[in-house]
C-alpha cells in the first residue's frame, strides 16, 4: 500500500493571525502543522506501519517554513516528504492549491510508482474551506469518500463512515482513491525521540511549479477568486456581566426579553 497524505503548515490560531498588504495570509507568523492533518497522517501510518513494502509520503505546498509540516509528519513516522515551494504559489486559491496537489500526486506516481490511497484531513485550520480534497479527486478523476469518522481498507477498496446530523452513511470506493478523515477517527501519536532522530535522515523531495509541469497560473496570478475588500472585523465588545446572587437566571431571561429573544 502506497499512501500520500497532504499536510498544511498554518498560522497558529493561538497567535496573531493576519494578512499581508497584498491580501495574502501572513505566513511569517508562528505556524504549525494543521491539527486536522494529524488524523490523516495517523490513519496513513496505521495502514503502512507494519508492512515493509508500504509507505506513507507526506506532501506539503507552501513557503520555506512549510517544511515544518512535513518534518512533523516524518517524525510521526511517514517515510518520505515532498515540499512544493515556489514564489508564484503565494495567493493561490483553493482551485490553484488543488491543481498543485493533483500535479504533485501525478509527479510522485511518475517517479516512484502508483499511489493507492490519498488521505487528507477534513479541512485546514486556517482557510477551513473543506473543498480541496473533493477538488483533487475531481482533477485526478479518482473516487472520493470524504469526511470519514472511520476507515476500513482492503486490497481493492476503502470504506468510510460519514456521520451526518440525522444518519451515518457508509461509503465505499474502489482503489486508487482519495479519502478525507475527521478528528473522530483516531488519536494521533506524538513523535517519539527515536522518531524525531530518524526523521532527520528521511528524504524530502523539493519541487517548484515547473517540476510539476505547471506555470505561474496555478498560483496567485491565476486565482479564480479575488479579494476585493478585507478589514479587521469590529471586535465584539463585552456586554453587561452580572454576578449570580440567586437571581442570575431571571436576570438572564429579563435581558433576553429586552432584546425580544424570548
Amino acid at each position, binding site marked *: 500500500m502506497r499512501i500520500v497524505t497532504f499536510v498544511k503548515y498554518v498560522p497558529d*490560531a*493561538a497567535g496573531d*493571525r*493576519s494578512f499581508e498588504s497584498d491580501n495574502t495570509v501572513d505566513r511569517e507568523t508562528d505556524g504549525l502543522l494543521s*491539527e486536522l492533518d494529524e488524523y490523516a497522517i495517523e490513519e496513513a501510518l496505521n495502514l503502512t506501519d507494519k508492512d515493509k513494502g508500504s509507505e506513507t509520503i507526506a506532501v506539503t505546498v507552501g513557503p520555506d517554513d512549510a517544511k515544518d509540516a512535513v518534518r512533523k509528519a516524518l517524525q510521526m513516522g511517514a517515510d518520505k516528504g515532498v515540499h512544493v515551494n515556489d514564489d508564484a504559489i503565494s495567493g493561490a486559491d483553493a*482551485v490553484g492549491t*488543488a491543481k498543485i496537489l493533483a500535479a504533485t500526486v501525478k509527479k510522485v506516481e511518475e517517479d516512484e510508482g502508483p499511489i493507492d490511497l490519498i488521505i487528507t484531513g477534513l479541512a485546514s*485550520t*486556517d482557510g477551513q*474551506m*473543506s*473543498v480541496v480534497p473533493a*477538488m483533487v*479527486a*475531481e*482533477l485526478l*478523476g479518482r*473516487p*472520493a469518500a*470524504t*469526511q470519514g*469518522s472511520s476507515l476500513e481498507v482492503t486490497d481493492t477498496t476503502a470504506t468510510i463512515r*460519514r456521520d451526518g446530523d*440525522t*444518519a*451515518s*452513511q*457508509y*461509503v*465505499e470506493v474502489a482503489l486508487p482513491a482519495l479519502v478525507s478523515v*475527521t478528528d473522530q477517527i483516531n488519536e494521533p501519536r506524538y513523535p517519539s525521540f527515536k522518531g524525531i532522530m530518524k526523521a532527520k535522515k528521511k528524504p524530502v523531495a523539493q519541487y517548484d511549479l515547473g517540476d510539476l509541469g505547471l506555470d505561474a497560473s496555478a498560483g496567485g496570478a491565476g486565482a*479564480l*477568486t*479575488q*479579494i*476585493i*475588500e*478585507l*478589514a479587521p*472585523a469590529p*471586535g*465584539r465588545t*463585552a*456586554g*453587561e*456581566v*452580572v*454576578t*449570580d446572587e*440567586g437571581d*442570575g*437566571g*431571571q*436576570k*438572564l*431571561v*429579563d435581558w*433576553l426579553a429586552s432584546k425580544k*429573544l*424570548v
Partner: protein
Amino acid sequence: MSEVLVLVDHADGKVRKSTLELLAFARRIGTPVAVFVGDAAAGEAAATTLGEHGAEKVLVASDPAYGEYLVAAHAELLAALVQERQPAAVIVTAGAEDREVAARAAIKTGSGIITDAVDVAADGSASQQVFAASYNVTSKVAQGVPFIAVKPNSTAPEPAAAAGTVEAVSFAPTDAAKTARIVKVEEKAASGRPNLTEAAIVVSGGRGTGGDFAAVEALADSLGAAVGASRAAVDAGWYPHSHQVGQTGKAVSPQLYVAAGISGAIQHRAGMQTSKNIVAINKDDEAPIFELADFGVVGDLFQVLPQATDAVNARK
C-alpha cells in the same frame, strides 16, 4: 435578467429554511431557479414552498444515482446545468455535502468558489468572516460562474411570489460519477430538536457541565433551541461529536447563542463568534467567553440555567 441556480437542501421534499435564505440572496443577483434532487413527487411538493420564496423554476432531477452515490453525481448535474443555462451564479448551503458538490462542479466548469459566505451582493461578490471572525473578507469570482456556499442564518427568508414551475431534468449522471457508493445508512434517533447549524437559538454546554447536560437540554427545550457542546465536552465523551461547535466541529451563527460552562477558547470561538447575540454563564469571572458575550452571568450553571428555564416557561 439572468438566472441564479440554487441547490435545494431538503428532507424528503420538505425544504430546509437555509434554502429559503439562499433564494433571498439569489434574488439580489437575478432570477432564482431551484435545483431539486430527489423524487418527482417530492419535487412537486417542494416547488410550492420554493415558488413562494422567489423560485421562478424548479428543476427536478430524479435519477436514482443521486441517492446511491455521494457528491460526484450531484456535481455532474450542477456542472451540466451551468453549461446549459449559463447562470449568473450558483448558490448552495455550506453544508458538508453541498460545499463539495459546488467544489467539484466549480472545477468542471473552470469556476471559482467562495465558501461560508455570510452575505451575497447583487454583483455576485460575497463576504466571509475568517480567522475566528476576526476579519471580514469580500471576494469575487473572477473566472467562470461564481459558486457560493452560504452559511445558514446569514439572512432571513423573504416571501416573494414566483411561478415555481416544475421542469424535469433529463440529465443522467455518467458512470464516472458513480464511484463513491453509499453501501449502508444508519439512521440516528431523532432528538426532536432543531438542526444545530440552522437553529435560531443554540444552547451549548462545556467542561463546566461536568458531563451533566440535563440543565443545558432543559433550557434548550424551553427556548426551542438546538444543543451544542464544546470540544472539551465532546472529547470527554459527554455529548456526541455531531453537536460540537468550534474549529473542528460545526460553525453556527444563530440569533442567540448561550454558552454554559464554556471558557471560550479560540477553538470554540471559531465556531460561534458570528452569532448575533451571545450569552455566557460561567463560574470563572475571567473566562474569555465574557469578552465577547453581550450578556454574562458569573455563577453556577446548575443554579442559573434551571431558573432561566423556569422564567422562560413562565413567559409562555
